[in-house]
């Protein structure tokens, strides 16, 4: 599809402590309640651990494990129960993060904002890249492992 043609994004939308997040449906291969998951083979992490340490596990009403898979990786991320799946977002309703946040954008999983119907905060969805989220999650986990088992000299 050429850049001039209209492209759309389909997102899974969930709210966590008043913040609305949207993740691209591409690559999402399943979802189940955290209480019912038996998955032990793949890395699974809490969404907020990477993005928002001010959020705690108790802020989730109904935690769900969202499974992501592509040719290179498979992992799970624990999110709040989604309020919408496959919500269509037209490109004309997507905005980059403001210039003052550009520095943060380079490393953050949040890459833009989708404008949806609703006034003020209700209309703002923070678009989150799950692959960037995974990279940061793995880094954090690796640091934790290093701290837990320091090298013996």
């Amino acid at each position, binding site marked *: 599809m050429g850049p001039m043609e209209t492209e759309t994004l389909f997102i899974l939308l969930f709210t966590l402590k008043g913040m609305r997040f949207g993740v691209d449906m591409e690559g999402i291969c399943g979802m189940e309640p955290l209480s019912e998951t038996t998955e032990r083979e793949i890395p699974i992490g809490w969404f907020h651990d990477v993005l928002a340490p001010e959020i705690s596990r108790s802020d989730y009403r109904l935690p769900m494990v969202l499974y992501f898979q592509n040719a290179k990786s498979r992992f799970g991320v624990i999110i709040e129960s989604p309020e919408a799946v496959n919500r269509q977002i037209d490109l004309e309703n997507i905005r980059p993060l403001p210039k003052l946040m550009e520095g943060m954008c380079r490393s953050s999983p949040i890459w833009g904002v989708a404008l949806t119907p609703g006034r003020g*905060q209700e209309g703002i969805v923070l678009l989150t890249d799950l692959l960037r989220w995974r990279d940061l999650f793995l880094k954090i986990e690796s640091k934790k492992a290093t701290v837990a088992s320091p090298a013996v000299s």
Partner: protein
Amino acid sequence: MTEEQTLENGEAPRGKEKSERILDAVKERQNRQRESEAVEEKTVNLVIFTLGEDFYGFYGEEIKEILPYEPVTFVPGCPDNLLGVINVRGDIESVVNLHLMMGLSSPGEPTRSTRIVIASAEGIRSGILVDGVEDVLDVPHSHIKRPLATLDMAIREFAVGGETLYNEKYVTILDAGKIFSKIVQ
């Protein structure tokens, strides 16, 4: 005999006609006004606002809009100097936490006077949360003095180099560009 009577009688008035005399007087007055305007001092437009108890100003040319407060959407991972983003008629604008940058106590609960001013400087556009906008006015250059030597260093960093008086309160003039540059660093 009065001049009116003369005109009624159809006689030519002596010297200049009344209309000419009036026009001369008007022109003279205009010339005086122009001369006085020429020597009148240049002014700067200032947006006077408050942070806590203190008064500050931005140059009017840097301020694009003054918006009533609306809740700011926090963006995880954004620098502490930023409160988050707002939607301004379809444009996403960041909102600067100027209180924090100036070393002041953090902004409390928003009140009816809380405002978000949209500033543009150094090629960057952003909202800045302030406790209130007091006035927008033109101030003669001579009324802008050098800032107090005792001015807090955190504030001096963003001061343009001037202070003026507004309602007997000192107003420190800030540079939006310096504020934005500090965040981008």
